[in-house]
């Protein structure tokens, strides 16, 4: 499966985006997000960006006030996931222009579409920024 979920959480621990690639009930999701956020937000800059949680790993990275958390299988390449997070941020940056938390809040659907372009079934399928963004821009134009 590779990637199991992608979360964006702000410094206060509020979820700003949640995308799951496995089926969890709402209660399970809430519990999971609570546990992870507690675990990851407590860590500081000098500590590494990988946290083992239950039977998988969380790779996270902080951009300003927003934490990007990606849950992956144990044999996934952690550094590649870090690069993936960075790619995601760069892509959003290019689309929104200096992306911030509010952009994601008000354009949640678009953020989801970007993720859909990049990840399918938990596999990373697209890694070129222009390829990710072109269908979104086309869709915007048409509607």
């Amino acid at each position, binding site marked *: 499966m590779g990637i199991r979920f992608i979360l964006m959480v702000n410094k206060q621990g509020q979820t700003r985006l949640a995308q799951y690639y496995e089926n969890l009930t709402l209660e399970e999701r809430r519990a999971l997000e609570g546990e992870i956020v507690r675990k990851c937000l407590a860590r500081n800059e000098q500590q590494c960006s990988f946290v083992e949680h239950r039977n998988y790993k969380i790779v996270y990275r902080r951009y300003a006030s927003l934490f990007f958390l990606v849950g992956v299988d144990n044999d996934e390449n952690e550094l*590649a996931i870090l690069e993936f997070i960075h790619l995601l941020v760069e892509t959003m940056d290019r689309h929104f222009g200096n992306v911030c938390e509010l952009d994601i809040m008000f354009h949640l659907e678009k953020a989801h579409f970007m993720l859909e372009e990049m990840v399918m079934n938990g596999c990373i*399928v697209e890694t070129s920024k222009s390829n990710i963004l072109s269908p979104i821009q086309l869709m915007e134009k048409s509607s």
Partner: protein
Amino acid sequence: MAGSSLMDTLFQRTLDDLIKGLRLQLIGESAFISKAMDEIRREIKSTDPQTKSTALQKLSYLSSLHGIDMNWAAFHVVEVMSSSRFAQKKIGYHAASQSFHEATPVLLLITNQLRKDLTSTNEFEVSLALDCLSKFATVDLARDLTPEIFTLLSSTKVFVRKKAIGVVLRVFGKYPDAVRVCFKRLVENLESSDPRILSAVVGVFCELASQDPRSYLPLAPEFYRILADSKNNWVLIKVLKIFKNLAPLEPRLARKIVEPITEHMRRTGAKSLLFECIRTVVTSLSDFETAVRLAVEKTREFLVDDDPNLKYLGLHALSILVPKHSWAVLENKEVVIKSLSDVDPNVKLESLRLVMAMVSDNNVTEICRVLVNLALKSDPEFCNEILGSILATCGENVYEIIIDFDWYVSLLGEMSRIPYCRKGEEIENQLVDIGMRVKDARPTLVMVGRDLLIDPALLGNPFMDRILSAAAWVSGEYVQFSGKPFELLEALLQPRSNLLPPSVRAVYVQSAFKVTIFCLNSYIQEQNIDSSSYVDTLVENGSESISARECQDASALASCDASDQFEQVEVFNPRGSNQPTKVTFAENDRETLTRVQTCTSASLEDNSSSLGSIVELLNFIQFSLGPLTWSHDVELLERSRNLLNFIELIRKQIPDGLNEKDGSAEMELAEISKIVELILDAFSDDFGPISINAQERVPIPEGLILKENLDDLKMICSDIEVSEGSYSFGNSLYEEKVDSSILSQQIQQESESLNATTSLLSEHRKRHGMYYLPSDKTDDASNDYPPANELKVQDILDDDAAHLVKLAERSLALKKKSTSAKPRPVVVRLDEGDELPVTRKKPQLNDEQLSDAVRDVLVGSDARPTSSQTNQSSKPSGRRKGKEKQNADNLLESKENLGNVEEQSSNMVDTSLRRTHRHHEKDAKQESPEKNSEKKDQTHKKGKRTSSQRHGRHKAKQSGDTSLPVASQTVIPDFLL
């Protein structure tokens, strides 16, 4: 109704309004959301598609971020999905991908909608449908839509084809027969020049190969080409992952890929690719010395890097290497040891795992020493990680690596004194287990147990209870190794033991019983030895006895004192029959008690063999156990009564005063010795370890019908259940009789309730914190002893680390040195494993079907006909042909397989080549011409490559050889190897 819907349409809040409102709300978030939900529920029923879709958009927003259930709206989602306007359809699909899952009932309704969108000319509509399908495709959807996906796999629009490839993974997982249709087109995409297609298809194969690598071995050449040619790091990482799974299956493949992988390792600047190379080498190519060397070199760069991420991964890579290449860790031992005191708990944990993996029988002592010192200085969590891993490693495989058990037992004692230690249960188990298994360790065990028991500071700590219980059991069971049984008895009966939970205290009392018996017995033994002279000088003995009595004066005084106290107690107790007063009683009398104790201990120490001291001993026990006869805990009550009654029995035989005639004393001694011997017999059986499946080996006695109707029992049980409510005492009595497991359950319940009360207490404290003195300990005032082990002042971290490194310098060195002069003692091991047999997890049926199907397509034979035949029953009738074909295939195979088996492996490659040809001939007969030609192409392509290289060499063999490979063997086309 119409009016309200018009109002909704005109004044509907958009998603943006909702978000803004949510940010500015004054009524509280949940109130705002529930208000918004009311609106949504109304709006979503609207007949106007725009209103409906906006409502759905808001709903899916709230659902994904605020955890609002939206399953109720599933049908509305389907309606919006079928909208003709793209913007609305998009909202519908988005909501579906967020909320639908396999069990959603409306999925049955959307098959045609999805089919329509999949065949749409608008590529975005197609992509919406594909995205959704990749999330929640069910078996039915996958089966019904396979033809459409098959068409899309060769779509000219890259955007669509890429997504179709992504969906295939899900479709294969749900409906393995889709492999027979789509697999070839999927493989063709591997040769695509478009990087987007390539990245998608490699991702799919990476996932497929991680589930069942063997089936994909034939595709190795394609992957190899990508590994050698691709410039895209994402793709390379995926391909490396595939090879990581394939290489262990085929040594020739491993040899082939070592070269390009080391090349990538040298060249690449991307850390992620470098790490993937390292991981591939250390997991799958660990036999290739040069590659491993290079990988270790690169790992070292990771380890010394400032980036904690790289350090963590470096440690991780090393830990994979340990079993085969421990030198790699030795070369980096400094970094590893330093990482044990890193700022990052994850790095610490990883290096701890690494260090534990290095432990062997000749360095275990040193490493454990280093780690225990470290545990003393670390935070509670890591401290317990360390202790846990020491216990796990040393206890592994029945203490395989322990040679010096005396050392290990003392280490256990030392570990239990570490203030943060929370590993009571494991230490308890190991103490008892070692006692039973290792005879030679018993003296040290008793010594360690004694040290733990006599330390009053340990009693207040609830995490010590289990360890103390083990210590008490051990010292009772093996009391013969104890130098000072009286001291042990005092420790077991010390007043502070009322801090222990009843279950542990019961063990204390039982051990006290054993020690008492031992003392009496040794007294009798001594008397008997003397007896020859004793009997002869029976009459003259008077003076001697008197002098002995004079000697005893002091102690007699003490015992008198004690019995006085005891009487006081007797008077006192009936009043204080409930628990709290009892405790206060104990508290009040502690002072006097300790006084008695010191007196007795002073007097008991030296003249253990005299009758007076025995009397005193009995007095002391009676005095200490008196309060327990009112205990509410049945176990404790029973055991203390046992002991007390026994003492009564003995006491009857002992003359009241010592001034009685010796003749009668002698006679009584015989009486006592009878009783004592009797009970000693009961205690004398040695306990041993029991195999976990011992119960199975007990033959069922004749006439015992295990499956007899147990209705009678049910009646009795229900009786008891009734009584449970009415009075609790009967309940606990019953429990004690029936099963100790129930008892332990009860104990657990008790501890749970204890936890509940402590949490209540802490909550109370939190609220009224200002009224309490600041204290980090929850222990109450009763624990006025200093802690067992003062925490050392935290040294400067660097200093520590340096010290640690120095300490570990020697310990990690694997030099063979004679660790101990004495040989390893015998450790009792049962023939069969003591551990539970590990049942291997069977692969799921679906996976099996999938790999069968893949093999079918790739190798052209059915690997496991049985499983795919069961699968056939669910197939639509149009697939009958395939079944016949398989059966024919099997028949043929079984006939031919009778031949030579030895040559199979050596000729694997060319026989398979022929087999594909043969297969393809058969195909010609039975399959449709279109499909047949496709297959022909494929086999020809592969065939040509193979024969061009090997043809000459194997020509002769080919003609004469009729053997076939075993069905499950798969084949790599030869040109690669």
